[in-house]
């Protein structure tokens, strides 16, 4: 039993390390580091700094393990075998309906949020590149809100959520066919400052 738990912890640490290495890129995706320069017509520049919040989500968090005589314990959210490890749900074209195969994932996240009322989560909605950018911005938000609604129906509460849409502006996969598009029509679930 102890060996099993240790193995699970080891696996979760490997998984975790994988995530932290991508953390640098993720911070960009969080969109909290927008350095902005304004340039006037005469070519003079004046800088306007965006917020420089670090914007790390669950991927940049540190887990705590207790090293002692007894069993090791970790947070179930970092268990790669848990449905909680699944942090992206996908959608059909121009749809915000949750697919059957994502229901177990969402149930697990809802239960986790319900059990941990102090945990907050950011839902980031995305679309594929087809259609108008402004409409897609709205569609991305609708997808994120549709996930929020399901999580709330199953026990999470409204103050646990931040909802953002990037529309078609941040594709996960660059490409001009359905295989790329289906990976871009998504909502990312990002636990905040765990």
């Amino acid at each position: 039993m102890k060996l099993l738990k240790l193995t699970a912890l080891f696996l979760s640490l490997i998984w975790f390390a994988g995530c932290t290495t991508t953390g640098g890129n993720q911070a960009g995706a969080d969109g909290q580091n927008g350095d902005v320069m304004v340039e006037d017509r005469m070519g003079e520049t004046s800088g306007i700094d965006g917020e420089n919040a670090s914007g790390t989500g669950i991927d940049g968090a540190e887990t705590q393990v207790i090293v002692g005589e007894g069993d090791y314990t970790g947070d179930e959210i970092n268990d790669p075998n848990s449905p909680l490890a699944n942090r992206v749900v996908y959608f059909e074209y121009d749809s915000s309906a949750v697919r059957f195969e994502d229901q177990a994932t969402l149930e697990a996240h809802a239960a986790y949020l319900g059990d941990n009322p102090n945990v907050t989560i950011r839902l980031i909605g995305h679309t594929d590149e087809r259609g108008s950018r402004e409409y897609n911005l709205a569609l991305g938000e609708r997808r994120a809100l549709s996930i929020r609604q399901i999580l709330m129906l199953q026990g999470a509460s409204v103050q646990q959520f931040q909802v953002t849409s990037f529309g078609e502006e941040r594709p996960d996969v660059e490409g001009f066919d359905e295989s790329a598009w289906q990976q871009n029509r998504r909502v990312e679930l990002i636990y905040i400052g765990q």
Partner: protein
Amino acid sequence: MTKQWLKIAASLAVLLPWQAQAELVIDIIGGTEAALPIAIVPFGNEGPTAQIDISEIITNDLANSGRFDPLPKRDLISDPHEKAEINFKDWRLLRSEGLLVGKVSTEDGELHKVQFQLFDVYKSQQLAGMRYQVPAGGLRRLAHQISDQVYEALTGEVGVFSTRLAFVTEVKGADGNKRYALQVSDADGANPRTVLQSKQPILSPSWAPDGERLSYVSFENGKTEVFVQEMRSGRRNSVAAFKGINSAPSWSPDGTKLALTLSKSGNPEIYILELASGKLSRVTHNSQAIDTEAVWMPNGKEILFTSDRGGRPQIYKVSVDGGRAQRVTFEGSYNSSADISPDGRTLTMVHGFKGKFYIAKQDLQTGTLQVLTESGRDESPSFAPNGRVILYATEQRGKALLAAVSVDGDNHRRFGESGTDVREPAWSPLRK
């Protein structure tokens, strides 16, 4: 067909009956315009050669408009630079009725004297002519201004060569991170200047009617926010940063208000923001639907917008005071991103069918729809301020670039590939 053109064509009919008739026939039956031949003699130079070839810019302007067909240089029978040097009889042998001549002189390479004269060679008559003094840095602008005068003298319509374009560029840096810029160029795509740079996406630039301010959406603070920026000073204000979406700004024709999409109520709705007071009024109230992409009708009393209240995105019209919205587009499963011609008669939009997206126009009186483009990957149409051309974004071999099509669908042009992704075009108003 303008009176001017008729007159010229009629005079051609006498002198060169075979050609003139062909042109008249095309004009009347097809309802399309044959490009008008014009002879542009390279401008004379006195003193140090100017950095900018004015007659070259004018030639490109007029050719790109699709309304003119400048004669090849080798066909020009002589190189006059002013009236006294023109033998009108000789020029009548060519098929061109318009003849543009001019010269540039400078002593110090900085201050330039420029003059041009446009003639009707059949009447031996000057149609337009001006003399200017401009600094070297103003030569390009002046060339576009002369193009406008030639265009107006020969077509009877306002030229748009000295207007500007706004657009968004995206480049991937060596570090793999994307950089976005809001740029403003001349109407021919030349002379681009960056007015905003960001690591985060920039969307939906919209020109104020005075051509001095731009509104746009920036993600620089991690979520959408609407800004208004003055072109001359670079100063800007955040005008909408509510919870949820803040996007799709569109200026009222009087320049005092912005129509916006805000989802602070929990759902994207159209609002009107009074810029001086900050007063916000809500226009749409459909909590189930996406309502976005407002654009003002020129009368300032109604707004066109995109809504999926009928199940799929279509264009609707609503009074700025709210009330019941009226559906405007019915053909195709996806119509969005409306823009309206300056006379309020023609709608252009992104028109989707069978999963592809084209630029189309719709006559608002008759409802007749015409698809104008072919790539199937077209978006963001924007009318030229004279209503003759529609600028839009498209893709070619995986690169995003700008293109333009005349409203009659006859003339297509692309703004060359620059290695940078270019999109979200907005054509400025006329220079005041």
